[in-house]
């Protein structure tokens, strides 16, 4: 170093360089956490939507048991379920507004009958996230007067 002035200048420059590096590190740290946090919030919102949709579908008055089994909380009337299928097809736009992009399926658990029945399918061609929810339900068959066990599967697409 030639003189005191140059040395002081170098000190200031060094201080500024270190300060800028530290500030840049802080900014990167902040944005990294911020982006992760936003991603997590989107995932939580999608999760919440999927659970909300499954509860809406599960509690549809169109399929709930009435009369004798109206007090059974998780009861679905098989006859109503069978009649709902054509109604869902003919009023697709109305039910799409309520359900959104979902696929509703159900299968018997006990008695052990084979096959999966698709009730409503609005699976989009392209989606980012897929959230399946499975709910055990009782299926009441008014013709045989029996209460079976089934699994209602609601897949939500976002």
């Amino acid at each position, binding site marked *: 170093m030639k003189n005191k002035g140059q040395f002081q200048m170098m000190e200031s420059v060094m201080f500024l360089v270190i300060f800028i590096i530290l500030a840049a590190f802080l900014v990167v740290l902040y944005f990294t956490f911020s982006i992760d*946090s936003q991603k997590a919030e989107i995932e939580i919102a999608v999760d919440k939507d999927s*659970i909300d949709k499954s509860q809406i579908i599960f509690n549809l008055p169109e399929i709930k048991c009435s009369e004798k089994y109206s007090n059974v*909380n*998780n009861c679905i009337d098989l006859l109503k379920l069978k009649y709902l299928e054509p109604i869902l097809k003919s009023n697709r736009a109305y039910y799409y507004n309520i359900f959104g992009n979902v696929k509703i399926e159900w299968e018997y658990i006990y008695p052990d009958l084979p096959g999966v029945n698709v009730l409503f399918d609005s699976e989009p061609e392209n989606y980012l996230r897929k959230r399946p929810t499975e*709910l055990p339900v009782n299926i009441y068959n008014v013709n045989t007067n029996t*209460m*079976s*066990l089934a*699994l209602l599967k609601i897949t939500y697409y976002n």
Partner: protein
Amino acid sequence: MKKGQTEIVGLIFIVLFVIIIGSVFLLVFLKSGDDTFSRSEIKTSILANKFLATLIETEIEECSRKSIKSIIKDFYEGDTQCLVPPYDTSVNSKEYLEDNVFPIILTKIFSDKGRAYNFSITYVKGGVEEPPFYSSQGNFDKQYSTIRKAAPFIIPMDNPQNKIIFNLITKTN
């Protein structure tokens, strides 16, 4: 070391200290968001609770179309037989559920779907727990990300000191 250099070093230490404290605060703040239940936990919890609620209402055609709840209740009240059609063959209701009902249900809802379970039905007589009416586990030793216990389902008996308790713990990924 000159006075100016000492000041700069001191300043850098202060800045570093602030950054470290800030980072720690930021991490603690972001970590606090993990207290909320995850989707998997909520769904597993709903599944476990609904499973018990629907299981007890399920009717067994081969046991005079009685619900599982009624079959077990009748078993402890002395009616231990199921009349299996078409010839109304008399079989022990406990054995019928053990061999022909519970394994199918538990396999289709839990094992086939990649879930683990620990399911039991116990009878409490006069406040004392008897050996389980039924107890079964599936893949319960394996590691899963989510574990939830359903609220025990209690079926009261005519004698208020006696009750049937359904328990379920399930694990999912």
